[in-house]
C-alpha cells in the first residue's frame, strides 16, 4: 500500500469502517512508515479535538419539550378534523380508530344506536316512517309524547333547519355564531376550531372575554390550550393576567399550567412574585417549578414564603 492510499484511508480507518483486509494492510504500513505514523497521530489529535465540543445541558430543555409535547398530544387527540358530509364523518371515525382503540367499541356502539334512533324517527313516510317533511337536512328533538284519541299518539317535535351562513371574520353574525360554537358543550373539536378562528379577533372585548371564560371553565385541556394560544398577544392585559394566574394555581393539567406560566412571565411584572411563591408551595411539575424558581431568583424574591 502506498503512503497516499494509506493517508486517504485515515478517516474511515479511524472509525473502523474499512474491511479487515484493508485494516491489516494499513496497520502494517503504519508500523513500517514513520511519516504516515506521524500523519495518523495528527489525525487522532483531530478526532480527539472533535470530542471536546461542548454540549448543552439538555435536562431543562427536555422537560420543556416533554411538556410541550403533552400539550400537543392533548390538542391532537381532542381535535377531530371535519371534512364536509359523510366523508368527514367517516374520516373522523377513522381517525378515532387509528389510535383510540379502547374507545372504538363504545363509539361504534353509540354511532349505531344514533343511526338506528334517527333512522327510526325520520324514515320517510313512503317507507312507513313518521310524517316529517325531510326535504332539507334537519336536527330535531322530541319534546313530549301524549296519547291522543282513538289510539293515536301526539308528539311535539322541535325542528331546527340547517342553513349555511357565509361571511368574513369581521361580520358580526359570523362572530356571534363562532362564539356560540365556543360554548358547544358536546363538541370539543368544534370548540377548538372556533377558537382558532376567533383568536385573531381577540382585540374585541367580547371575544377576549369568551376566550378567558373558555380558559377558566372548559373541561377539555386541548380546548383550554387553544384559548391560551388565542390570548397570547394579550398577555399584558390585566383581565388576561388575572385569568392566567388563576390557571397557574388551579388548573389540573400541567401542560396548561406550563403554558400559562410562559405567558404570564413574558411581561416583566414583579407583582406576580406572590403567585409564583404560592405555586412553588403546591406545584409538583418539574418544569413549572424550575421556571418559577428561575423567575423568583431573577426578581430577587425568596423561593418560599415565610
Amino acid at each position, binding site marked *: 500500500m502506498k503512503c497516499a492510499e494509506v493517508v486517504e484511508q485515515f*478517516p474511515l480507518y479511524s472509525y473502523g*469502517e474499512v474491511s479487515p483486509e484493508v485494516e491489516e494492510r494499513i496497520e502494517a504500513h503504519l508500523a513500517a512508515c514513520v511519516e504516515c505514523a506521524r500523519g495518523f497521530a495528527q489525525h487522532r489529535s*483531530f478526532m480527539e479535538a472533535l470530542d471536546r465540543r*461542548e*454540549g448543552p445541558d439538555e435536562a431543562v*430543555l427536555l422537560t420543556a*419539550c416533554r411538556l*410541550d409535547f403533552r400539550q400537543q*398530544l392533548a390538542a*391532537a387527540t381532542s381535535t377531530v378534523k371535519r371534512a364536509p358530509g359523510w366523508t368527514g364523518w367517516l374520516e373522523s371515525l377513522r381517525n378515532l380508530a387509528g389510535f383510540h382503540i379502547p374507545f372504538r367499541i363504545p363509539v361504534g356502539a353509540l354511532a349505531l344506536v344514533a343511526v338506528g334512533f334517527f333512522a327510526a324517527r325520520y324514515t320517510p313516510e313512503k317507507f312507513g316512517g313518521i310524517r316529517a317533511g325531510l326535504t332539507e337536512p334537519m336536527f330535531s328533538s322530541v319534546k313530549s309524547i301524549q296519547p291522543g284519541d282513538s289510539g293515536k299518539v301526539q308528539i311535539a317535535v322541535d325542528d331546527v333547519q340547517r342553513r349555511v351562513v357565509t361571511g368574513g371574520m369581521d361580520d358580526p353574525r359570523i362572530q356571534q355564531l363562532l362564539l356560540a360554537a365556543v360554548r358547544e358543550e358536546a363538541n370539543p373539536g368544534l370548540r377548538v376550531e372556533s377558537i382558532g378562528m376567533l383568536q385573531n379577533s381577540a382585540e374585541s372585548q367580547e371575544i377576549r372575554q369568551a376566550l378567558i371564560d373558555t380558559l377558566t371553565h372548559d373541561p377539555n385541556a386541548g380546548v383550554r390550550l387553544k384559548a391560551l394560544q388565542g390570548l397570547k398577544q394579550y398577555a399584558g392585559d390585566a383581565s388576561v393576567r388575572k385569568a392566567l394566574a388563576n390557571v397557574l394555581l388551579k388548573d389540573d393539567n400541567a401542560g396548561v399550567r406550563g403554558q400559562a406560566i410562559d405567558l404570564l412571565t413574558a411581561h416583566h411584572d414583579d407583582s406576580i412574585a406572590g403567585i409564583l411563591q404560592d405555586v412553588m408551595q403546591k406545584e409538583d411539575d418539574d418544569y413549572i417549578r424550575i421556571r418559577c424558581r428561575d423567575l423568583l431568583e431573577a426578581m430577587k424574591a425568596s423561593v418560599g414564603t415565610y
Partner: protein
Amino acid sequence: MAEPLDRSAERARTAAGSDEASLIREAQRGDQDAFERLVKSYDQSVLRLAINLLRSPDEARDVYQEVFLKVFRNLHLFRFDCSFHTWLYRIATNVCLDHLRRRKVRKEESSVIDTPEGPVDQATRLAEEGPAGNPERQTWNKELSAGITAGLEGLTPRERTVFELRHYEGLRLRAIGEILGTSEEAAKNCLFRATQKMRASLETFV
C-alpha cells in the same frame, strides 16, 4: 457454570427487544401510557441529535415536537421490518434535514455568534457553568467548540447528518445508510468528504 458474558448480554438485548416490541404493539393498539413510555425511552437521544445537528435550542424544541407527532400519527404504519430505533431516527433525521435545508435557503445567521469574549456557539448557552478550572483552558475549549460548530456549518446538510450520526452518535455506516435511505457506500463517501472538510476547518486547533 457461569454463563459467558456475551451470551448473557445477547439474552438481555433480546429481552429488551421483545419488551420494546410489546410496548410498540400496545401503543399501536391505542395505549397512550405505552406510547408515552416509548417516547420517554428515546426522546433524550432525539433531542440531543437535534441540538447537535441544528445547534439551536429553539429549533431543537420544534424538531422534538414534529418528530414525536409524526411518530404518533404514523405508528400504526410501523411494521417491524426494521428496528424501531432506525425507523424513529429516519423520521428525526428527515425533520432535522428539512430544518437545515430551510436554513440554507433562508441563509440564516450562524449558530456561532461573536461576543466580547470571542466566538460562542449558541447551543452551549444552554450549558450550565462547569466547575472552575483553568480559565485559559476554558477559553480554548470554547473557541474549539465554536470552531467545530463553524466547521459543521460548512458541510452540506447530508454530510453534517452523516458526520453527526457517525462521530457523535457512534452509529455504524450501514445503520446510517438505512436511516437516510441510501447505501452504506454513499454514506461512506459522505463521511469521507465531511471528515476532510472538518479537518481543514480545524487546522488551527490541531
